[in-house]
């Protein structure tokens, strides 16, 4: 049995973590709040979850994560999307935060979930990973949520810096999920978030389950590490869960299709390593179809790790983990971010100018107009 640590930083990280705990209670998306009274999280592995935030309201909003797993990092005025403040807070409260991890024992693998664009999560995550890598020798993977592009220059700027910092922090890999790419899901913004969170949750839970399952063709934690260490240190996940009788071929194709992925990429162009985990009833697991599809992928990108989990009575489900050697979408985002940074700079200069204006105004302080 694996020991797994999942940390959610900031509001986005907290929410996804809560979604994971909710799904693990059983009942999936529609799991009622009451479930926590009669059920318990059904992880295959020993999973510890930990939510970190400076905003107590975000922590209060969580429903399915135990109170002792929600850690409030006090900061008088919040972080307010300012990563510099966030970093300062982390440094001040570092020992307290690290003690929370230490107390939860030793792990085989850790995941840190955060948005790239907010203040708290995006600034805590790189520093936290760096600290964890210095203290422990288990791999730490970050699941990073990219913002909607229209959320403004500040968020884009934060994204650009935080992703760079997470890469430099020693994280063993970054799994991207892009709100912008996934946004067509819901109506209201809250529904959109919930939908995206469910998608991410489904993939993470499937992965955790797979890493601790008996497989027909083995992929294990070691293979996952190999896949994640490939490419440019950036990865994403694809998933498909058939709701009815579906051929395994279709299921594999869907996991690799745009509708299955969490981030916009042409995998045949950009992927560097891949892992495909197939699960379902034996009757769907047609070896020829599986080999055929996997060969197609490995023909384009090289070695593909594959795992097959037999679960009687289940329709086919396929998870793909893909590391990318290039990400055109990321380059585009950085392009926009650079513009955003430029804009912010100009804005600041304007504010400074306004400040000068204030000085000018202040010169008439105490004076009364003379008529």
């Amino acid at each position, binding site marked *: 049995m694996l020991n797994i640590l999942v940390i959610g930083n900031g509001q986005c990280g907290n929410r996804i973590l809560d979604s994971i705990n909710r799904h693990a209670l059983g009942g999936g998306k529609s799991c009622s709040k009451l479930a*926590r*009274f009669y059920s318990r999280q059904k992880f295959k592995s020993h999973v510890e979850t930990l939510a970190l935030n400076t905003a107590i309201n975000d*922590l209060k909003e969580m429903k399915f994560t135990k*109170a002792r797993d929600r850690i409030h990092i006090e900061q008088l005025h919040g972080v307010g999307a300012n990563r510099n403040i966030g970093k300062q807070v982390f440094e001040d409260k570092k020992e307290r935060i690290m003690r929370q991890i230490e107390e939860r024992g030793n792990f085989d693998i850790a995941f840190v979930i955060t948005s790239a664009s907010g203040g708290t999560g995006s600034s805590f995550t790189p520093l936290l990973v760096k600290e964890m890598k210095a203290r422990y020798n288990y791999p730490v993977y970050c699941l990073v949520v990219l913002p909607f592009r229209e959320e403004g220059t500040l968020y884009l700027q934060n994204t650009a810096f935080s992703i760079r910092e997470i890469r430099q922090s020693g994280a063993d890999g970054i799994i991207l999920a892009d709100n912008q790419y996934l946004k067509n899901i819901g109506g209201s913004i809250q529904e959109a978030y919930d939908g995206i969170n469910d998608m991410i949750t489904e993939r993470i839970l499937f992965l955790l389950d797979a890493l601790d399952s008996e497989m027909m063709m083995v992929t294990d934690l070691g293979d996952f590490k190999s896949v994640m260490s490939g490419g440019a240190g950036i990865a994403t996940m694809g998933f498909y869960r058939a709701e009815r009788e579906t051929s395994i071929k279709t299921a594999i194709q869907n996991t690799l299709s745009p509708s299955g992925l969490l981030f916009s990429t042409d995998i045949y162009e950009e992927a560097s390593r891949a892992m495909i985990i197939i699960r379902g009833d034996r009757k769907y697991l047609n070896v020829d179809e599986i080999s055929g599809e996997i060969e197609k992928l490995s023909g384009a990108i090289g070695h593909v790790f594959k795992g097959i989990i037999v679960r009687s009575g289940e329709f086919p489900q396929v998870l793909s983990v893909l590391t990318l050697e290039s990400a055109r979408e990321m380059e585009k985002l950085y392009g926009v971010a650079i513009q955003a940074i430029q804009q912010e700079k100009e804005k600041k200069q304007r504010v400074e100018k306004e400040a000068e204006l204030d000085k000018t105004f202040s010169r008439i302080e105490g004076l009364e107009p003379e008529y």
Partner: protein
Amino acid sequence: MLLAFFILLVSGSAASAKTAVYEGNIKDGQAYQLNNYVIEITDIFPEANTASYYVYEKDKEVTDGLLGVNKNADFSFEEKGKVEMRLKSVHSGGVVTVEITMSNYSTGDLYTNKLLEKGRSEAVFAGDPEVVITKSTDKSKIKLGESVTVTVKAKNSGNDTAHNVSFADPKQEHFVLEETTYEVSGTIPEIGYGESVPETLVYIYKLKATDAGAFELKAVNASYTNSAGQTYKASSNTPSINVSEGNKLRANVEARLNVDSLSVQRNEKIISTIILKNKGNAPAQAVRVDILIPESFEYVEGGEDIETVDGTPRVYIETLEPNNDKEFTYTLKAKEVGTYNISSELSYEYNNGIEAVNLKKSNNSTALSINVKEGKFDFLIKNPLYIVISTIILAAAGVHIYRKHKEYRY
């Protein structure tokens, strides 16, 4: 005799490779033995430098003659061999020095090669004893469960006494040893040979068939030595026996549960019976029935043949003869409303008349479903225990919910 000597002398010269077997003194009256041949030296005349010799094969004289110093005599030995004697010197006091050599024979094969100090009477001769063992049965066709008498006899049809004869009769599958009538004790020191020697009885025993089929009884093996101490082995024949499926006996006990009514009121007495019947053709032994009553039923009373073990009524009878049945009556009381099953666990033993050990059987009866309804006056005597229990359940649920609530409250 002299002529014979000369003939020997002449024929003895043409020999192949010779091997010396003895060079030394032989006294008057002593002899030299080579396997079954004995050379005896007598009439030693130092003055004439001569001595007489006699050669015997076992007790039968083969040749004799007078030998002068430095003269040879020979005789043929077993199939192709030849023994040559040479008188080397004659001493006063009845002693000669001889040299005995052999040709056409590998001296390593000699099992006896020695000076007989006390003369020929001391000689021990070896032949080939051949112990023929016969295993016979009184019947070759029996039914399962019947017995067959096995007799094992041995006879020595060789030409030497068999010494230290030991027999081994392997255990016989598909049969059990029922009785041993006779068995030789230990090893037989000697079995003589020759027509006049009667057969030796080795075993008489009875085997009882436990399986049907055609079987070959295993061979009795013997090992023994000849007079020279050489080891021999022999095996008997393997008679076959056809065992046909006879009639195995069996007990077949059935337990039948009955109640006076399948629909009763709470706290009403239920008169129940259990009937045991042996439908087989062998007596059932140690018949035991546990009557499995639901927890909400109470065993009120029953006949003295029913004892309760941990609240479970149990019937025990030593033997139930074929075609016999026995009925036991007892009373139950239902304490709670609902539908309940009563069943029984039966076990017994019987002997199938073939195997030595009893066979054990057990089975569970089909369940009797009893519907217990609210009693007429139940509402008056509603058990306050229920209230306590439901309160405890509610309280436990409350504590659980509070704990969970606290666990998740932030």
